[in-house]
């Protein structure tokens, strides 16, 4: 309890906690869950994008998307490394992802169905992710905070590219414009869900905020996202699929409809449109790759042994 108070005091003073410092089990567990989930999201998130890498409409867009996917795999690496400082290996976390013990962001359980979805994912999904992540640059755990600083810089780049891609559609032929609107229709509410359930229903929140693992409330961030995104949609000439969306002069914010939270919980339970296929893809990649990992390991051992023998 004394230790706990000292720990909390450090956090309150804005100090960073480092891997070798003492920390409460709950803090460690919560961080592992959160960082792991974030890492998994980077990896699983490449699947809906990979779905269009092979169908990108120009060489330039294809290159941009490949670079993005490469960045995301890189983010996955940083985050797994950050989580490893808490005493859990990348392989362990991968196994937990593959057998369903650990989650990834539910947004990636929605399909990417037309090219404009790739734009929408950059604009809305990365946009919402950044909104979640920017405050986390100030999170209390040092390695996590440093990873977030690196990641946020690249993410905002991705968001601009995504916006540019959907803008090209929105300004294009009627069919392209239809793609852009269709993408917005399908991704709007799932993006709002990315901030988590309304504050009243959110578990884990209070303690996480005290520990500065979480900085803002879900509803705060959601409002901020809506306020930022609506004018962008208007600029594109697209219609946000919400009849109740209206600027509230008094609040200085947009009023908007809540997403269908029963759908959110369905997706979390595994009933999203792509849950099964996403996990099956990751499992297949992992299983098919077993011989490669084993082969590389065996070779590395042979080389190390040969080196020792030569010394």
């Amino acid at each position, binding site marked *: 309890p004394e230790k706990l108070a000292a720990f909390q005091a450090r956090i309150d003073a804005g100090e960073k906690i480092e891997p070798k410092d003492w920390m409460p089990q709950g803090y460690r567990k919560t961080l592992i869950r959160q960082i792991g989930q974030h890492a998994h999201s980077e990896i699983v998130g490449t699947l809906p994008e990979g779905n269009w890498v092979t169908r990108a409409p120009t060489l330039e867009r294809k290159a941009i998307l490949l670079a993005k996917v490469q960045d995301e795999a890189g983010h996955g690496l940083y985050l797994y490394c950050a989580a490893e400082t808490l005493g859990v290996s990348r392989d362990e976390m991968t196994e937990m992802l593959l057998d369903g013990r650990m989650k990834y962001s539910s947004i990636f359980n929605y399909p990417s169905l037309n090219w404009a979805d790739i734009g929408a994912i950059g604009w809305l999904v990365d946009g919402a992710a950044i909104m979640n992540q920017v405050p986390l640059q100030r999170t209390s755990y040092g390695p996590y905070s440093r990873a977030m600083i690196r990641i946020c810089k690249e993410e905002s780049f991705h968001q601009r590219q995504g916006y540019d891609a959907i803008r090209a559609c929105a300004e294009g*032929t009627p069919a392209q414009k239809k793609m852009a609107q269709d993408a917005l229709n399908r991704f709007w509410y799932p993006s709002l869900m990315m901030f988590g359930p309304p504050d009243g229903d959110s578990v884990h929140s209070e303690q996480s905020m005290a520990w500065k693992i979480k900085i803002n409330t879900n509803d705060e961030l959601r409002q901020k996202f809506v306020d930022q995104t609506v004018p962008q949609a208007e600029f594109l000439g697209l219609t946000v699929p919400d009849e109740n969306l209206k600027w509230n002069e008094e609040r200085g914010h947009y009023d908007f409809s809540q997403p269908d939270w029963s759908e959110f919980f369905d997706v979390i339970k595994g009933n999203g449109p792509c849950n099964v296929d996403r996990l099956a893809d990751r499992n297949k990649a992992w299983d098919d*790759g*077993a011989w490669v990992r084993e082969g590389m390991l065996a070779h590395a051992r042979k080389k190390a042994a040969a080196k020792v023998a030569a010394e």
Partner: protein
Amino acid sequence: MTRNEALFEFLQRMGDNTLILGHRISEWCGMAPVLEEDIALSNTALDFIGQTQFWLGYAGEVEGEGRDADRLAFHRDAWDFRNVLLVEMPNGDFGQTIMRQFLFDAWHSIYIARLIKSSDARVAEIAEKASKEIAYHLERSADTVVALGDGTEESHARMQKALDYLYPYVGEMFLSDEVDAEMIAAGIAPDPSTLRDEYDALVQKVMDEATLSIPGNRFAQKGGKTGTMHTEHLGHLLCSMQWLQRAYPDGNW
């Protein structure tokens, strides 16, 4: 064939090799055996797409009919592609993908080194830029072939199978035809047939380290570089690659 026509063919050959192989690698997106390989594969694909933009962009200029790199990439049918058959072969397992990569990188690195000294300034410039990327690709694919060839029994068997499957597609990279003759005469590009010894030495060295045996049968499948007979695989690749452009030809992306 005029010199310009030959140059157009030559540039398509260069650009189609990188376009098609880049596309094949990009099919791995999110499915690699380990995260580091995911990163490496998308990086390689990215390099190839970049090189494609240069080669096909220049090809379009040389042709002079207003086709840019995208138009060439997304609006030609299989018979107009000039890539060697090797690069259109399917990914198969990771071993087949990386073996294909090495067999191509080895040729690519030798060939590009000659192009740096091309009499055509644009060709020399593109080759110069690409050569660093290609050297890195070769280093990486050679290392991986060695690691997996000299890894476990299973990885060895898979790599040998990949080599046996792909080796018949090596010979085409060294065939010379009238396009090459024009390029040689103009000092633009080397005679591919003169590069085989250097290639064989390099491949032999890596396969020795990888404890893999090069097949004795030197029969060479051909028809990709000239466009006379691609494999059935290319058409399917184009179905995905060109889908959007074909379905929405008026789009601005």
